[in-house]
């Protein structure tokens, strides 16, 4: 532990939404270590998702720098970013973003087919306890199950980092806990650095490091030693 996986310096992002200018990130400086379970906390509009998208190579900052290991993501061109996402990053979104026309196992295969040394799609689904529902289409799965397919899809390529944007945001408590368990399993069993965005402060209790954002700025970074299991969380 403690090797920094990401080093972020003076990161800023300005959006233009029609006629309005939105400052999503203002001079954010932060580092994330390898193997950590990181929780990004903040109210909506605080810049969490923008930060996550930039770390994940889905978006580019207006200014500032993001180093992934030794490479500078802010200098990378589109094909380099695509390759970066393909090889190193796993994404989990609030609304799962599964391909509705593909079954659970096919959604995972979508990733394993383009990765260098993936796990078998069935193994990835077993890890999130969905080996009974391989051939179900997203519409035949509950929200929690869909999110676990998304997690399986994200980790099947054995990424260096798993980025989760409000993974439990659309779920009730009990399904949310099952999803968080799946994330924890991935973090501990595979050692994948995991970054979870949430506005639910309770989830912070299972993190190694908690980063709070507000209005595009980092307001607090807390390293924790006492981690709770998901079922122990107090929503």
């Amino acid at each position, binding site marked *: 532990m403690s090797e920094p996986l990401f080093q972020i310096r003076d990161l800023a992002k300005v959006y233009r939404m029609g006629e309005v200018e939105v400052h999503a990130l203002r001079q954010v400086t932060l580092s994330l270590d390898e193997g950590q379970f990181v929780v990004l906390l903040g109210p909506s509009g605080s810049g969490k998702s923008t930060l996550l998208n930039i770390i994940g190579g889905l978006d580019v900052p207006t200014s500032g720098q993001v180093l992934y290991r030794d490479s500078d993501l802010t200098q990378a061109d589109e094909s380099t970013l695509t390759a970066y*996402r393909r090889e190193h990053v796993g994404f989990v979104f609030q609304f799962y973003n599964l391909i509705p026309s593909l079954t659970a196992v096919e959604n995972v295969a979508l990733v394993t087919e383009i990765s260098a040394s993936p796990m078998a799609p069935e193994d990835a689904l077993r890890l999130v306890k969905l080996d009974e529902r391989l051939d179900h289409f997203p519409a035949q799965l509950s929200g929690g199950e869909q999110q676990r397919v998304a997690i399986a899809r994200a980790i099947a390529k054995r990424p260096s980092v798993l980025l989760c944007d409000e993974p439990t945001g659309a779920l009730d408590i009990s399904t949310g806990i099952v999803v968080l368990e799946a994330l924890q399993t991935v973090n501990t069993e595979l050692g994948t650095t995991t970054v979870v965005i949430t506005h639910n402060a309770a989830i912070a209790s299972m993190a190694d490091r908690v980063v709070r954002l507000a209005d595009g700025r980092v307001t607090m970074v807390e390293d924790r030693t006492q981690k709770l299991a998901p079922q122990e969380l107090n929503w």
Partner: protein
Amino acid sequence: MRLSALNRKLLRDLWSMKGQAFAIAMVVAAGVAVYVMYQSTFASLSETRRAYYERQRFGHVFASLKRAPQRIAADIANIPGVSALETRVVSGVTLDLEELDEPAGAQLVSIPANRRPRVNDLFVRRGRWIEPNRPDEILASEGFVIANGLELGDRVPAVINGRLRRLTIVGVALSPEYVYSIRPGELVPDDRRYGILWMDEKALAAAFDMEGGFNDVTIALSPGASSEEVVAALDRILEPYGGRGAIPRALQLSHWTVENELSQLQSFGFLLPMIFLIVASFILNVALTRALALQRPQIASLKALGYGNVAIGWHYLKWGLVIGAIGVAIGVAGGASLGTMIIDLYNVYFRFPELRFTVPLRVVVGATTLTFASAGAGAFGAVVRAVRIPPAEAMRPELPARYRRTFLETPLVSRYLGTAGRMVLRNLARHPFRAGASIFGISFAVAILMIGLVFTDATDRLIQTQFWEAERQDVTVNFTEPRSSAAVHALARLPGVVAIEPQRTVAVRVRAGHRERYLAVSGIPPAPRFKRIVDRNGEPIRLPPGGVVLSQTLANALGISLGDIVTLEVLEGRRPTRRVEVTGLVDDLLGLSAYMDLAALHRLMQEGDVTTGALMLIDTAQEPKLSATLKETPAVAGTGFKRAVLRRFREVLAANLGLSIFINLLFAGVIAFGVVYNAARISLSERSRELASLRVLGFTRAEISLILMGELALLTLVSLPVGGTFGYSLAALMVGSIDSEVYRFPLYVSRQAVAWSFLGIIGAALVSGLIVRRKLDGLDLIAVLKIRE
């Protein structure tokens, strides 16, 4: 082979939009079908013709003359470039077939009894070749035999040079010279009333007092020889023997007709499918743009998963290509069956030993290439736009669409517009390209339908002008050779003849500079009762007392205008040559024609009241009796009863136009349905939320249907006049392309044609609108509101 996950997604996504995909594929299929139909028909016809010509040694140069002695054949054979020749006796005769009311005619062509012809050999379908010293044996053309239900051994009564002879059919034959055969002076072929009979050359020569001579020659050229030079040399040799001017194969009637058909097949076989494919590519673009907008989150996911722009772009491009491939498959099959129908029709008019429909591989490859190019082009823009969106942005829902007031919504209009009307207008104005694409597509459907109907109108016009304004007689009689006016007086006394007008036509070569044409000049009496000169609108033209009046087509062919001087070389009688002023041009529907004042024509010919035929008004009750009498009149070479000619003309056109109207109706329906259905589905998909919201607010089904249907109705309505204009131009283009030196089509669009084509398209639009409207009834209000945009 295992399908990759992405390809499975492709198939399932396509399946989920199967209605739309199928509608677009059908438009593609229509284009492919037209292409395959025309191009394969072209290939089948031209290949069949090439092989037939080669096998039967079809000639390259043809000439007819009054009479030349056999020894001249050696001079002709010595013309450089001539590889083989056949001298013949050819003459028109009247046949006395009992089953027919009107006299039938035939072309008698001599063949050697002891060998096969070196040029224009016959293909013997059944029976055998004629035997020497059996002067009454003949081979008869297949079309004539079939049409009259004749058998081998049957006897055909023919009036040969004034004597009735019973000719025995010993064989049924076809000739490359008569792939298309038509009675001289008629507009459509009639196998019942006109046939070709091949007879022993000695017997035929004897019958026409041509022993030791000939009146027709066909020549085959050696490879590389110039037919122009041979024609010129042949003309010089035959001049003293009453040569009527040699013609190259290109001007031989049968060849020319087939050639004309081929060139039409080729030009429409490219133009029409191209327009179909452009329409298809437009609606594919519109459909994919919408489908990809719905796929925004999925595109974002794929990008997040590490799929590159090229992989994603290719994935979506394949949507277009798969739809195109389905279109190709349906289109090739459809085009093949339509092509078979066209070939069946050709088999009625064109006589080949075997004309079969085949679809050459290169046509399929061509259709596939054109389709993929157009489907690819249609999909490409939509795909590039969708893929170009940065992944983080694609993940966010699309910005709410920006609407504005349209320029049409002036305070005055707004008052009458209502909410629904406003929504319709603004929605159309927000997607001008999409609206334009739909309008283009529907307009094209209107145009296609109109073209079919325009030809019906044109035909009616042609009949009206030609049969009722220009030639008002009931019966046309042609004499075997020029006669004195006494012959006309004799005809006037026949039963049933009410009025009669003599006719004088003279075969000439018209020259202007280095250009020339062969045709007949008609002598017109000062106050013509029957045969008048009329322009293409059926308006009679007054004949100037001097000079010659030419058809506009002839003037164009000769490159001359009013007031110019042309040289008339008469090809009969004393063969005078005169320079004559062009005192009138008539823009008529016939091809090459020339008219002179009758008296002036007699002066030119240095003759008295000579006639070559007569035009008669008759008492129709006496028609059978008159017909029977004319059949037995030796001086009569041929007769044409307007009633029979018209009936036949209508039959032929009904078959031709019936098929083409059917094909056009089919295609117009497919396009109109496809375009409107596609537009409706897109509107529904974009606005189901909005419409469901309105339902929740208490709008009735009828009211929300009005918004959706109103948009389709407006698109259709705007398309009608655009399509009408488009159809008119396309019809003008088609009519122009068959504007030939034989006949022309008038371009005339009746109100009925316009009305029917509009109604047809409104009907197709209505059907597809109603199908989509049924989906509106099933709108799940709660679910629609829950779906995240």
